[in-house]
């Protein structure tokens, strides 16, 4: 579904991504781990061109998104992102946050979009917050709304950029629970996180990045119980 070839990214002098190659299949849940500054988030943000790659190619369903001729806005409708800082639209209510994109981009009838949004809010137990503004929600609530906002577009892939890093443990648990549900539904997920338990439990595959490179990728039990490289071993010894 997604394939990445020779991806490079420079920020001025900084060489942040070095020759990244990888393939992600339909329905997979990928977790990317690695120390801070290893390029995980940059890699994720390159996948939907929030960061423009310096060189290399990315395909999404056989469309080369790194080719300027292809309309990235169309592709992003099928490949949403959930952010560390939630980034709900502050000027809109919860309901409108969810329905804005379906109504404006997919031309869904307003009533229909609201019905679907309410159903999604039901699933995350926030239907009573439909007319609240983001500022009136807790962090965990905001992140759950951000996730269903993304789902309302019926995407093929959702990119999670450290979705729980700004949350306290209790809220982290509620967000991870929601993400786990999604992965069971067969949505393709690529998730940058420090939640190793989540990686062990939910991921089909774990990618370990360090210093702008993919050092190791494997099934979670292999990664955590049988790390091959010295760098992964030392990383795991520090965090576990």
């Amino acid at each position, binding site marked *: 579904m997604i394939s990445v070839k020779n991806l490079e990214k420079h920020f001025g002098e900084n060489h942040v991504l070095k020759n990244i190659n990888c393939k992600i299949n339909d329905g997979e849940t990928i977790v990317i781990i690695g120390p801070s500054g290893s390029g995980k988030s940059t890699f994720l943000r390159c996948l939907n061109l929030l960061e*423009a790659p310096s060189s290399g190619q990315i395909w999404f369903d056989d469309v080369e998104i790194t080719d300027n001729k292809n309309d990235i806005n169309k592709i992003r409708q099928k490949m949403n992102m959930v952010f560390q800082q939630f*980034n709900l639209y*502050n000027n809109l209510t919860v309901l409108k946050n969810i329905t804005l994109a379906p109504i404006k981009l997919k031309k869904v009838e307003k009533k229909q979009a609201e019905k679907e949004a309410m159903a999604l809010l039901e699933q995350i137990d926030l239907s009573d917050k439909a007319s609240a503004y983001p500022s009136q929600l807790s962090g965990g609530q905001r992140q759950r709304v951000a996730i269903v906002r993304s789902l309302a577009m019926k995407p093929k892939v959702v990119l999670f950029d450290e979705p729980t890093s700004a949350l306290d443990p209790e809220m982290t648990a509620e967000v991870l629970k929601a993400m786990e549900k999604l992965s069971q539904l067969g949505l393709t997920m690529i998730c940058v996180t420090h939640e190793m338990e989540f990686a062990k439990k939910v991921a089909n595959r774990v990618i370990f990045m360090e210093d702008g490179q993919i050092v190791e990728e494997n099934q979670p039990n292999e990664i955590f119980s049988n790390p091959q490289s010295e760098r992964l071993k030392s990383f795991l010894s520090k965090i576990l």
Partner: protein
Amino acid sequence: MKVFKKNFAILTILFVVLEIFSFGFLGLKARALAFETINEGVLTVGTEAGFPPFEYIGEDGNPTGFDIEFIKAVGEKMGLKVEIQDMDFNSLVASVGTKIDIAIAGMTVTEERKLAVDFSEKYYDAEQCVITRKDSKIESSSDLSGVTIAAQLGTTGNILADEIVENHPETILKTYDKFNNAVNDLRAKRVDAIILDKFPARTFEKIYKGELKTIPGDQFDFEIEKYAIAMPKNNPSLQSAINEAISEVKNDGTYDKILDKYINADISSDSKGLWAQFVSSFIESNRFVLYLNGLLVSIEISVFAALIGLALGMVLALMKIAKNHKGKRPIFSYIADFYIDIIRGTPLVLQLLIMWFIIMQSSKNGILVATLTFGLNSAAYVAEIIRSGILAISKGQMEAGISMGFSKIQTMRYVVLPQALKNSLPSLCNEFISLLKETAIVGYVALSDLTRVANQISSATYQPFMPLIGAALIYFVLIKILSSLVKMLEKRLNKYDIC
């Protein structure tokens, strides 16, 4: 959809304004008789109604006085309807032939003015005088050496004063927009002598009895001045038609009647107490209506200018922050920068004059020109306000929008701009308030806004300060109300502050 409708309304207003604007450009001059006037059948006459008894604002709020009644009689003889436009004296000569057909404003024939305009036969002999304080030792032209003299800008007195300064380099010349201000400074000993026309000199002497005195011009070798009507150069048919009409008016006795009515009448003005000054500044002749009308002009210009400023300012702000996909600024971003720099780097009053005399020379609609100028000016400031409002919105809002599949423009419209505008609202209101105050300069393009009305009344009543203080009070009260509203708004916004 609501947002869209609002935008649409603003656009519509803009279009209407532009429509009027272009009509002003294309408006063809009508042909009449042997000469042309700007409007067919109408003689458009410029004056500055701040020179009683020749021209001043009468009880009905319209210019009146010797010149005005005289030119109306002349127009009647020519078979034309006379329309008076009150404007700044300094603008008169430049406006002849474009904004106005002719000018009558107690204007003396001088060689300098003859370079720019032609003159009719003289219709009045005027004598320049000098007024000084009672205790002054100034008696002849040599006494003016080394003292500070004053004159009204652009008047004959100004020309005489220039000659005096040329002959006596130690003499300091101060020029004023209004005689009233010069007289005030004379009394405050900021100046030692004022050169001005005999009639107003005598009036001031009467008002400040025991304080000021008038010295006849012949003691200073001032020549008798000839007042004449200024008209466009090289238009002999207009010139002869006016000269014929002047002699008719003189021969049938109309001229003498007007002379008796305005010039030879006894001057009743006397020095007055505060209450009497108040009455004559605000209550007598229903003058408060004039202030209100002036205030309406100020408000009208500010409101429409604010709408133009908001719409254009928003566009400029978006142009300025635009980036292409490589993260570089496109050319139009620099154009917006340039525009904002030019507007903020030049005085508003010059922008107004350039607009009036050069860019929109063919337009006679001062309100339109002023509104457009203030709108274009305000846009530069609004652009900076909105731009910083946009920059204050976290980058995540834009990223959230585009990662959902919205284009940058869509995200701007649905998400970023509403937040930015809301945050900028108090600053935008403050911009409107300063706009309202800045309109005080539209007198330069012949509009009677609150400030100019105060000036006119000050001239008509020979009262230097009461009308000005009155106008200042009106501005103050209005702006105080507006700024309290802004404060309330700010409080409410903070209460429901988002994020």
